[in-house]
C-alpha cells in the first residue's frame, strides 16, 4: 500500500505522517507537491497539518485552489480514502469535500495538549478498525478548531452517521467540560456520507509510537490501510 502525503507551502506535519506510514507501518509513502496534477497511484491520500499558505484569508482557503486538489477531489469521488489532519481537515472543509466551517477557538488561545476522543462511527477511512465507544488519547495543536455547522447540517451529520470523533473525558463522557475549543457537539472529526473522506483536528501521527507518549493514533493509519485494501 502507498500513502501519498500532500505538501502545501506551510505544511509542517507532512514528515511526521510520512514517518508513520513508512517507518511505523512499514508501507510505501511519498510526498505529493501541491502543484502536481498526478497522485501517482497512491492508495491513501493524507492532507497533513500545518499552516498552508500562512493561513491567509481563512485556514485552508487558498490551499483549495492548489492544482493537486482537483486530483484529490477526483480520488475521493472514486471512493479512495482521503484523510485530513488539522489543517488538512480545514482544507477539506474549504474544498467542500466535507461540510461545515472552522472558527477560532472559543478561548482565542492556541491549544496544544493531549485530549481524549470517543469513536462515534466505525468503518470510515480513519476508523475502520475502531469500535464505537472506543476512547483514544492524542494531542491537539490548533488555534482554529472550533467546528461549526448550521442546525440543518448538524442534523444531516447525525442522520448519516458522519460524526466520527468527539472530544470526551477519559471515560468516554462527552460534555461541555471535555470540549477544548467550543466545537459544536464536541466534534473532533467527521466524514462524508460514504465514509472515505475523513477530517479531524487531533494529530494521530503524533501518537503512533510509545516513545512519543502514546500509540492510540496508530490505529487510525492502520484503519486507512484496511480501508484502502477494501
Amino acid at each position, binding site marked *: 500500500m502507498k500513502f501519498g502525503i500532500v505538501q502545501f507551502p506551510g505544511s509542517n506535519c507532512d514528515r511526521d505522517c510520512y514517518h508513520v506510514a513508512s517507518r511505523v507501518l512499514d508501507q510505501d509513502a511519498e510526498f505529493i507537491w501541491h502543484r502536481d496534477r498526478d497522485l501517482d497511484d497512491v492508495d491513501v491520500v493524507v492532507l497533513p497539518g500545518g499552516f498552508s499558505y500562512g493561513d491567509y*484569508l481563512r485556514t485552508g*482557503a487558498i490551499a483549495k*485552489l492548489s492544482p493537486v486538489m482537483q486530483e484529490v477531489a477526483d480520488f475521493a469521488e472514486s471512493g479512495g480514502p482521503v484523510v485530513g489532519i488539522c489543517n488538512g481537515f480545514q482544507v477539506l472543509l*474549504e474544498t467542500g469535500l466535507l461540510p461545515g*466551517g472552522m*472558527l*477560532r477557538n472559543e478561548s*482565542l488561545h492556541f491549544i496544544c495538549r493531549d485530549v481524549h476522543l470517543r469513536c462515534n462511527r466505525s468503518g470510515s477511512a480513519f476508523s475502520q478498525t475502531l469500535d464505537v465507544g472506543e476512547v483514544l488519547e492524542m494531542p491537539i495543536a490548533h488555534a482554529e478548531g472550533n467546528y*461549526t455547522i448550521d442546525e440543518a447540517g448538524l442534523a444531516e451529520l447525525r442522520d448519516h452517521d458522519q460524526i466520527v470523533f468527539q472530544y470526551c473525558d477519559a471515560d468516554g463522557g462527552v460534555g461541555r467540560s471535555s470540549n477544548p475549543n*467550543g466545537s459544536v457537539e464536541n466534534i473532533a472529526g467527521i466524514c462524508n456520507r460514504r465514509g472515505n473522506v475523513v477530517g479531524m483536528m487531533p494529530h494521530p501521527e503524533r501518537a503512533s509510537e510509545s516513545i512519543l507518549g502514546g500509540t492510540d493514533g496508530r490505529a487510525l493509519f492502520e484503519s486507512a490501510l484496511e480501508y484502502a485494501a477494501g
Partner: protein
Amino acid sequence: MTTVRVLIQSKAGVLDPEGEAVKGGIERLGHEGVERVGVGKVVDIDFETDDTDEIESRVEQICDEFLVNPIIERYSYEILDNQ
C-alpha cells in the same frame, strides 16, 4: 482601473471571538455601553477594466467561490472612486 473594496464579516449569530476580545479592550479603555464589536477583513481588488457590470459580476463570483465562506461569513462590497 477600478478599485473594489470587499468587506467580510462574521454572519450574525456566528461566534466572533476576535470581536469579543476587542470589545473587552474597548471596555477596559473606559467606554461603557458598547453592545457589540465585529472584526472583519477588508480586501481591495484593482481591476484593469472600468466596466461596472463586468466588475460586479466578477467580484460576486470571487467572493462566492473564494473570498467568503458563506457558512460563517457575509460580505458587502463597494466600488471606490479612484479620483
